[in-house]
Every structure is written in C-alpha cells, then in structure tokens.
C-alpha cells in the first residue's frame, strides 16, 4: 500500500464539445447516458410519488371518497410498478453508467451503442406503460400480477396487456445493460485494478448484473405464458384445463426475490463509498463486504417461496424457505456491522450525503428485522397481506434503497455536473424526507398488526386504524415537501451551485482523480492502480491528518474556471461516433410489442401487419447499426 497511481494531475472543468438536442439523441457517452437515466428516473419518481399521495389521501380517513375502487387498484399497481421498474432500477442504472467505467479506469463501457439502446428502450417502455392512463386502462392487477386475476377471464380490458407488454420491453433494457456491464467490469479494468481492488460500488453493481441476467429470463417466460394465455388462448394458467395459478407465483417470485436485491445492492454500494469518505477511514472489512454481497445474491435465488407461505405449501417447504430466508440476515447483518465499524473512530463529516447514508444503515435495519419476523411461517400467516408487510418493504425500499440512492445523488452530483448541491436545501430535503418516511411507514406496522389488509380502497371507522392511517397520510406531506425541495436543489444547483473541482470530498477512488464533469475520454492516461484507495495513498498518507474543510460556499453562481482540457483528438484517443441507430432500434422494438394491443381490439390482422412492419424496421435498424463501425478508421 505504499506509493501508487499515476493519477493524471490536471483538473478543472470543460464544456462538452457538443450540445443541443441531436447530441443527446445520438450520444453513446456513458456519462451522458447516465444523466439521461438520472433525469428520466427522477421524473418517474415524481409521478410514482403523486400516485402514492392520492392513495394516502384516499386512506387518510375512514370511507375515503377521493377515488373509486378501480382507480385505487390502478394507482397502487402503477405506484409499485413505477417505483420498482421506472425509478429504483434505472436510478441505479444511472450510477452504473456514470461510475463503473470511472471506478475501474476505463474510457467507456464495452458496448457504447448497446448502452444507448438500453436507455432508449427504458424511456420508450416507460412511456408505453403510462400511455395506459390516457386511454383509461392503467394496469390494475398489482405489481406482482397474480393469476388468475390477471387472466382474460377476470380482466377483459387492456389494463393487464399494458402491464405485460410494458414489463417485457423494460426487461430487454435491463438484460442488454446487464451483458454490457458484466463485460465492462470483467474486461476493461485498468492495469492493477484486480477484482479485490475494485471499489465496492462496482462490486455490488457487478453482482447485480448477474442477478439481472439470471432472474429476468424467468419473468420473461412467466410473462410470455400470461401473454399467450391472453392473446392466443393457451392454457398455462387456466384452472379448468389443469393449469396451475401457482406456476405464476413460483416463476414470478423466482424473479421477484432476486429483484429485491437488484433494488437494494446498488444502494448498499453507494453507501459503502459515502461512509468511508466522510469517516476518513477505509471501509471496514472490505473482503467480507464483497463476499457478503455475493452470498446475499446467491441465497437470494433460494428464498422465493417465502412470498407464498399463505398458499399452503406444506411444513417441509415452509421450513426450508423460512430457514434460507433467515440465513440471508447473516450476510446482511455483516454489512450493517461493517458500516458501523467504518464510522467507529472516524473523523465524521455530516454532509447531506452522509446523513442519507447513515439513515440507510439505521432504517434498513428496521425493515430487515421485520423481514426476519415474517421469515417465520407462523408469524407470516398473521402478517401476510396486511399493512405490516407494506411497512416492511417500504422500510427496505424507501428508507433503504431510496435513501442510499439520494446519498449517491448528493455525493456524485458534483461528478455529474461539476457543481455541488446546496447543503442548506439538502438539509431541508433530508430532514423532511427522513421525518416523512418514518411518519408514513412506522404507523403501518401498527395498522397492519391491528389487522388492516393491504390493497383495500376504504375501511370503516371503529377498527382502531384511524389514527395510524392519518399519521401515515400526514407523513406523505413531509415526504412530498422534502422531495420538492430536493428537486429544486438539483435543478438550481446544476445552474448556480458551487464549483466542485475534481475532488470536493477528499474521496479515495479513481473517479475523483479526473475533472468534474469528466472529459468525454475520462482518463487522458489510463491509470495504473496499486491499492483499493489510490487517491488517499497519494494525497494523504496519514489518512486522518488533513480533513478537508467540508462543504463551503466557494463560488456559488460563478461560471466554471476556463481551464482548457485537451480534446480526445489532440490526445490521439479514439472515441466512438455518435449514432441515432440505437434509438431507432429501441423505438421499433417498443412499437412492435405495442402493436400486440390491437389483438384485443379484435383487429388481429392489423396487429399481425404492424408486428411484421415493425419487426422488419427493427431488423433493418439492427443491421444498419451492426454493420457501421463504432469508430472511424485510424
């Protein structure tokens, strides 16, 4: 761990060579794609939040009259689907895009155009899913889409068709990104960046990609069966034909439980970057953090049926899945303790990012403990389908994943934009969101234990649920105001925030060695890495000796200093050419799936014709894309 790292010494910021709408439509730069993911997923976070707000308005008092039962079903279905597939996964993907190449010392991902394709598929898929609102057929079968409720016999309108096709489209995006990031991490690490020197965020991202490429095919098939049942009259979930609705539940949760770790591990990774920097200490137990991440992912494939205790699988299956579920608490607990020991004795700086990160450690533990409670089948039979479960998974997803992702936004915003987020606004954002989350979700433990079922659109007075529901609804107001302040901060600070410089936090990993925002080629010289924390080796041999002053308002509103950074051409670095073809491929693929909707409008011939046309257009775009070289000849 002695001296190290030929870290480039230039710093400052540069204007992107290209601007304008066309440059964004054709970009293949992982940093700009990251920004697109970030902006789009934050937009859907607002939409999903509005859906949640209406749900809580309806439930604030007994016998609420804000929305009808049908609209309520659509709201909770789309709230769940949006937050999982359109917010947490793509917000994580924004960080995968920004950070994986920067943290391993690469100039881009392995397949830049495939990366653009993933984003455009996500964008078009998310739009397709939400178009359903405007034709009055938003999905209404829950984010889990249980059969037979979602089969044609019980859901004759287009609602479920939008859900099935939308998830298929979004799955393509995640899978393509998964292959891309696996290849990037395996094959594009800088010299000396051995696996056990990779930053923990990249490690968690690596593990998540394996979860994605192994879990998404399973839901693809489950959805294909449902799609075929609905469109072509097959019998996969037809009980009269001997079909078993439990097949759906098994396939869905074989995907669905790994999906839970797909949602939380990126946040764990971000927190594992934030805590060492603001504790001024290396991460405690780095190898154990890596192994526990692997163990969580591995065990995550063996616990799916704990979502199904109530169907009556018998004592053997219940016991096995109860035990495997409790086992996951061990590697997860290891992570919690390692984060605590990272902070122990450190020089703590309570920036907004640090507050969000510490909150994940504290509140994820609350959700984790209630998770262990319903790992026990007898307890679960009391808790299943009550608000206790709602409390549990919101503590792990909002107080866990979202807190971690917000920590990541506050920590990496300077790297995205070159400007720091405002800490005063950040404080308001954090505290209002923190209070709101606890006020909303903690009382749900009680309304659940008092027997309030999930997914009911209204309830009678006099069952002891009024107070808890009112508290939950008040909490949403805090979350909403906090989020609005946060979004104002993101928008405002991107214009006038303090100039960040290359490394505003005194952080240890490679991404902080290059300018903010990074030049399109990232690293002028590919660094050689000799330790896990190359920048700390260079800057501060005595790790806690020179604590930076923290965030001060240095130059708020100023334009960035005009330090000129050499262009890729001057440095002789070959860059991939921009391309519009991934966008077209994504568009035609989305339209191809969307055309199937016509079948249920009894226009089978139209549907077939449209599918053939768009499949042809998709194939043509793919050929045009693949037969064009990525770069100019040199």
């Amino acid at each position, binding site marked *: 761990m002695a001296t190290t790292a030929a870290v480039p010494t230039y710093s400052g910021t540069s204007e992107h060579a290209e601007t304008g709408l066309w440059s964004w439509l054709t970009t293949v730069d992982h940093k700009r794609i990251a920004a697109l993911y970030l902006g789009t997923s934050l937009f859907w976070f607002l939409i999903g939040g509005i859906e949640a707000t209406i749900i809580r308005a309806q439930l604030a008092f007994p016998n609420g009259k804000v929305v009808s039962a049908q609209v309520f079903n659509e709201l909770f279905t789309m709230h769940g689907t949006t937050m999982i597939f359109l917010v947490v996964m793509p917000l994580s993907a924004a960080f995968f895009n920004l950070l994986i190449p920067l943290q391993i010392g690469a100039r881009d991902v*392995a*397949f830049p155009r495939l990366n653009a394709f993933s984003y455009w598929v996500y964008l078009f898929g998310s739009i397709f899913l939400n178009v359903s609102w405007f034709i009055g057929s938003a999905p209404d079968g829950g984010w889990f889409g249980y059969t037979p409720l979602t089969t044609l016999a019980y859901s004759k309108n287009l609602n479920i068709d939008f859900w099935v096709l939308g998830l298929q489209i979004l799955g393509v995006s995640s*899978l393509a990104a*998964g*292959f*891309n990031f*696996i*290849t990037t991490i*395996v*094959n*594009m*690490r*800088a*010299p000396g*960046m051995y696996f056990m020197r990779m930053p923990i965020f990249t490690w968690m991202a690596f593990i998540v990609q394996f979860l994605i*490429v*192994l*879990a*998404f*095919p*399973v839901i*693809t*098939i*489950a959805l*294909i*069966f449902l799609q*075929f049942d609905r469109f*072509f*009259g*097959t*019998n*996969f979930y037809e009980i*009269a*034909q*001997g*079909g*078993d609705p439990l*097949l759906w539940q098994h*396939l869905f949760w074989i995907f669905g439980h790994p999906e839970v770790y797909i949602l939380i591990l990126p946040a764990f990774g971000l927190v594992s970057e934030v805590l060492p920097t603001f504790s001024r200490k290396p991460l405690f137990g780095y190898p154990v953090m890596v192994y526990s991440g692997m163990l969580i992912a591995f065990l995550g494939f063996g616990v799916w049926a704990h979502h199904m205790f109530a169907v009556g699988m018998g004592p053997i299956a219940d016991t096995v899945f109860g035990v495997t579920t409790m086992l996951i608490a061990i590697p997860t607990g290891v992570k919690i303790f390692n984060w605590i020991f990272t902070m122990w004795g450190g020089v703590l700086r309570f920036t907004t990012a640090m507050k969000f990160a510490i909150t994940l450690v504290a509140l994820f533990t609350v959700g984790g403990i209630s998770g262990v409670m319903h790992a026990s089948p007898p307890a679960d039979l009391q808790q299943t389908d009550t608000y206790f479960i709602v409390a549990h998974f919101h503590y792990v997803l909002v107080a866990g994943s979202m807190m971690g992702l917000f920590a990541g936004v506050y920590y990496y915003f300077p790297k995205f934009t070159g400007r720091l987020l405002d800490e005063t606004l950040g404080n308001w954002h954090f505290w209002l969101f923190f209070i709101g989350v606890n006020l909303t979700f903690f009382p749900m433990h009680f309304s659940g234990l008092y027997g309030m079922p999930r997914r009911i659109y209204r309830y009678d007075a006099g069952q002891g649920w009024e107070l808890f529901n009112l508290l939950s609804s008040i909490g949403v107001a805090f979350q909403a105001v906090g989020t609005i302040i946060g979004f104002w901060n993101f928008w405002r600070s991107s214009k006038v925030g303090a100039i960040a410089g290359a490394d505003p936090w005194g952080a240890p990993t490679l991404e902080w060695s290059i300018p903010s925002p990074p030049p399109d080629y990232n690293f002028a010289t*590919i660094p050689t890495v000799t330790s896990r924390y190359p920048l700390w080796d260079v800057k501060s041999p005595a790790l806690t000796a020179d604590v930076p002053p923290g965030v001060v308002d240095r130059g708020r509103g100023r334009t960035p200093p005009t330090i000129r950074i050499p262009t890729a051409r001057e440095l*002789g*670095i*070959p860059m991939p050419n921009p391309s519009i073809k991934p966008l077209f491929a994504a568009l035609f693929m989305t339209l191809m799936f969307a055309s199937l909707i016509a079948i249920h409008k009894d226009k089978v011939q139209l549907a077939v014709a449209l599918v053939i046309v768009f499949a042809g257009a998709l194939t043509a775009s793919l*050929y045009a894309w693949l037969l064009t070289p990525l770069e100019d000849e*040199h």
Partner: protein
Amino acid sequence: MSTTAVAHAHAGHPPTTTGLDHRKIAIWAFIGSECMLFASLISTYLIYKGRSVTGPFPHEWWCRATKATSAAGPIAGCPAGELFKPILNIPVTSQSTFVLLMSSLAMVLALAAVENNDKPGWAGPGWGGRLLESSKLWLLTTAILGAGFLCYQAYEFTSFIHEGLTIKTNLFGSSFFTLTGFHGAHVTAGVLWLLTLLAIDIKRGLGPRDALLVDISALYWHFVDVVWIAIFTLVYLIR
C-alpha cells in the same frame, strides 16, 4: 477453443483485462441468461407433464368418446374418428435431431476454415483439402442444415395440428408448442446470423481477423444445439 483476435488492441485502446475480445465475454453472459430462459420453459413442460385434462397426449393413445387412455396400443371399442394416436413422432424427430447435430459439425469446419484462411493448403492436398478450406461452403452447409431442421419442425407442427393438437388444445399443447417454438425461433435467428456471415464472406472474404465473428456465432449455434439435445431427451425420449 481457438485463440481470439484482440480486435481492440490497436493504437489508442488499452488491451482488455482478460486478453479476450469484449464480444466473447458478452456472448457467454448471454448464453448464461438463455440457460435460465430455457430452464423456465423446460421446467414448465415437465411440471405440466401428465396434467392435461384432455388429449391428445404425447405418448399415449386417447379415445375422445370414452376419455380412455392407453400406453400399450390402440384402444379397443373406441368409435371411428374418436381415437387419437400418441402425438410425438420419434423417428421423424430423430432425423431432425441428426440434421441439427450435423450442422454443429459443419459450424466447426466453417470456423476452422475462417481461422486458417491465410494458410492455403492447411487442410491437406487434393479436392478434400480444398473442400475443407472453403468457409463459404461450411457456412452455407450449416445454414442449410439449420433451415432443414426448421422444415422438419414446420412439418411436425402442421401434422400435429392435423392430428388435433394445437397450442390451445390442452396443457401439453400449450407447453410443447411454446417450448419448441422458442427453440425454433432461436434456430431461425441463428440461420439469419449465418447467412449474414456468408454474405460478408462472399462480399469481402472472411479471414483470421474475422475469426471472432464466426467464433461467437458458433458459440450461439452450439448452445442452441445443446438445448435441443435437452429438449429431445426430456420431451421426446423420456416417457
């Protein structure tokens, strides 16, 4: 497996960490993912095996009028037009399986021909050697054998439909057509891929520099072939 040309090792690009081309890593990740896809399909077929409430059945005779089944032979006393024979035609499918397996052999020869394109005479003297050296011949042969397999599948599907089994008939029909149809779609994509390579070969010739292109298509092709061996064993051969 052959060595892989490192396409990105030219000026400006750092060498890859493993020395392998990115596309080689990606195709393996893709194949891993595809394993889960086919595992889900095959598991569903096996879970639903024997659970159809109505015939025709894969391995048994079935009388529609009496609902009787028999694994031994035709059911005596079943009215005319009501008797359905076991639907799977193992002799014909054995032929198509053989065709697909031979296509993998042709694929191996195509890759060898491309990799050794710069060494005329590598395959030995005479017309046999010249045949082995022709990458176009082996790419075309692979594509034709793949297309032949698809013709067998088209024949199989239409004959099943004539015998009274469609994707809507029963659980067996739904899971059988979906599983083998997905496999057929993969073969179709592979044939298109091979024909694209053949077009490139005809246009400008494929040499050792392009071996990776053929290599990854071969990995995909062999994978699709291996999946068929699993399907043939689990669906057709095991009763």
